[in-house]
């Protein structure tokens, strides 16, 4: 199940596990990424808390936790090569995986159609 947030993140939900990344639109708006800072594995975030940082040539931006939970895995490939997020934001450019604290929070997120509507 693929969900989206107002902050242009995507969440792929499989049971109580979720993979988080930023959308194609976010990647385009940021421009060439030069640096990614990921959270530590084991760290817990509430929904909306800043979990990661991306820096493009233009500016630094925070990536907020789309739902509450514990980080169980991060993607070291994007730290080594941030341009992966630009080239494949929905695939190889994923940020981290988390274990959901409350799977009911997922219902508040947008589906793909809703997100497309947000982009207009």
């Amino acid at each position, binding site marked *: 199940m693929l969900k989206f947030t107002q902050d242009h993140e995507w969440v792929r939900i499989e049971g109580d596990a979720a993979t988080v990344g930023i959308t194609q639109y976010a990647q385009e708006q940021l421009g060439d990424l*030069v*640096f990614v*800072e990921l959270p530590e594995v084991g760290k817990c975030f509430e929904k909306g808390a800043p979990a990661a*940082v991306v*820096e493009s*040539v233009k500016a*630094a931006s925070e990536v907020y936790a789309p739902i509450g939970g514990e980080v169980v895995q991060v993607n070291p490939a994007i730290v080594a090569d941030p341009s992966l997020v630009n080239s494949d934001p929905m695939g190889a450019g994923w940020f981290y995986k988390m274990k959901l604290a409350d799977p009911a929070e997922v219902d508040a997120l947008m589906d793909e159609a809703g997100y497309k509507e947000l982009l207009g």
Partner: protein
Amino acid sequence: MPFSDNSHVLRCTCHFDWNRRCEACFIDRLDSIVVLVWRYFHLYFSATSRHQHEDVLDESTTPVEAALGWAIAKVRRRGGARGGRFPGADVVLEQLERGAPRCRVGLKPRSRAPVRAGVLLYIDASSSQSVGVVTSGTFGPSAAGPIAMGYVPRALSRPTTPLFADVRGNRLPVEVTELPFVPHRYKR
């Protein structure tokens, strides 16, 4: 404040007019290049930084600190035909001879994280007293890594001096480096 009363000099249009001499500026046309360079840098850098204290050039910065001493004509230096007699001359000439207390330096972050304007500089990973500030910084494609510029005390301005930049609460190692970051490749 080295330029204690420079409000007129900063706004006056006489520096753009080679046929006029403005008595209020106390500046000859040739010398006005100093002010032009200063103003240009001021406009350029203040457009890229967010707060006044992060400007590469603000009212508290002397040309000597900003490494723009080359723009001060020989005749205006001490012993020159028209030595002194410009706003801030006492301080600027003193600094030209003895060195400025702080200097504009290039900074090369050791990690990949860009170090941006406003970031404070420290001499080690734990001290609470900052020794300088970054005035601009970003990722430099030609340098293939992050680059930054800022002010540090003269004692810490020598290239290869290790410093620490506080980025989002993390002390990241940076190194004072020669400017320009990418050496010139043209012949003079």
